[in-house]
């Protein structure tokens, strides 16, 4: 298989064309917006927790971006549903990357991991779980609203 065929292998194109978990949740238990400054991908993640306040019952996402970011976020929703917030907060990125299963250059890696990073931010805001380090340090964002 050529590198090109690997990058856009069928499973990626399938998740891109028919994303799982695409949409919004009304009054979610956790929510965050994420952006990839490299290419302008945007994603918003919504999480519904089970009555135990810990198990992830449902994850949805909205936004726009490249095939890699959208497909990876789609796969992510399947990967984390039914797991606990604590576990997902420290989910190694390699677990998602194995699922994606294609070689990624550093720039495309950022696309692939946008959804996971945003999900961790959502859980951090709702549950105080650890924040991924690349999301720290945005103190003093400029907001004119």
């Amino acid at each position, binding site marked *: 298989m050529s590198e090109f065929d690997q990058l856009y292998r069928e499973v990626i194109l399938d998740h891109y064309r028919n994303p799982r978990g695409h949409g919004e949740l009304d009054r979610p238990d956790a929510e965050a917006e994420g*952006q990839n400054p490299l290419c302008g991908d*945007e994603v918003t993640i919504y999480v519904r927790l089970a009555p135990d306040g810990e198990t992830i019952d449902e994850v949805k996402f909205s936004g726009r971006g490249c095939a890699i970011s959208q497909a990876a976020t789609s796969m992510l929703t399947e990967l984390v549903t039914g797991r606990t917030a604590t576990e997902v907060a420290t989910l190694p990125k390699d677990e998602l990357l194995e699922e994606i299963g294609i070689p990624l250059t550093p720039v495309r890696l950022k696309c692939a991991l946008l959804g996971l990073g945003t999900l961790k931010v959502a859980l951090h805001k709702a549950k105080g779980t650890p924040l991924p380090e690349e999301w720290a340090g*945005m*103190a*003093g964002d*400029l907001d004119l609203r």
Partner: protein
Amino acid sequence: MAVTAKPKLDAHRLRADFPVFEQLFHGKPLSYLDSASSAQKPRQVLDTMHEFYATSYANVHRGVYGLAERSTERFEAARETVRALVNAPSSREVIFTRSATEALNLVAYAWGLDNLGPGDLVVVTELEHHSNFVPWQYVAKRTGAAFRHIPIDDAGELQLDALDGLAAEGRVKVVANNLVSNSLGTINPVEELAAWAHEQGAIMVVDAAQAAPHRALDVQALGCDFLALSSHKLCGPTGAGALWGRRDLLEQMSPFNLGGEMIRSVALDRTSWNELPYKFEAGTPAIGEAVGFGAAIDYVTGIGLEAIEEHEHMLVAHALERLAEIPGLRAFGPPPERRAGIVSFDIEGIHPHDVAQVLDWEGVAVRAGHHCTQPLMTRLGVAATTRASFYLYTVPEEIDRLVEGLHRVKKVLG
């Protein structure tokens, strides 16, 4: 007992790496004794930059194509090289700047403007370079903080017994000091100052522009909070420098320059900042220069900073001994073991500019002036000094030629 030989460098051999020495000035070989101002560039750095621009150059970070990835890899590898040079915990804490001056301005503006106010004290030293002096003077004025200095004694060493008096004056919030004085070569007790700064609840800002080329650095051992570096004093290109800062402080700080690369997202009514270190790297950086900076660090560390330090001590001791034979010459600064390869001096009755002019005819390049340390010149009671400074390619014969030239200066102008 096992005897470990001290690392030695062969300056005569290393000179062959520097094309600049292949030419004559006024028909004479060049004795370049102005390395404290800027160091010469070895072939290894020039070749690396040429090779990078010829084969691997594109804008960094956003490109999806192979050439951009290669360029980004080289740029980020240079960041890692800087990190290793100062033993920083993470390369996220290493910010590329245009110069050490820009790095120090970054701290003064981005930390100082938000954290200083009336009742606070900003403490610098009497032998600071203007780049770690004027930004703090300015930001103190802008915020209403008081601006104070640690005085020096007649040998050019900091008088640490002044610290208690300063602490009694108000809340010390910033202590800013150069690790090595560019005018006198004094190696300052930064570890002690950092410990004192932290006792006061202050941050410790270290200007290492003059120290990095001459001795091994370890930000964790120094205990400082920020440290500024320059490429061009370390055999690298101009237009590149770096700031190391403690991550928690960098995370809390607002950006310094604003524009491309430093953002995460921008809308008409709001903007959010990119992650470290990019939050502080607005605009296309000096990419080839950063790669050259990395090559220069590899070159210097390949020779060994300990060997360089040892070599400079030898040269300073030789210089002080030889300069003592010039009547009316007064050398400033501490003894050789407590200074880097810098000797500043004054010859009674002869202005340093005239000294430097006559020396140039002999092919000897020295600096004459206030060396961007006017408060220090005032303290020494002179308008300017003549400064000879050494580096890894300096040989004792160049110092001998300086001394011969000074005899000529005395003959012509004395």
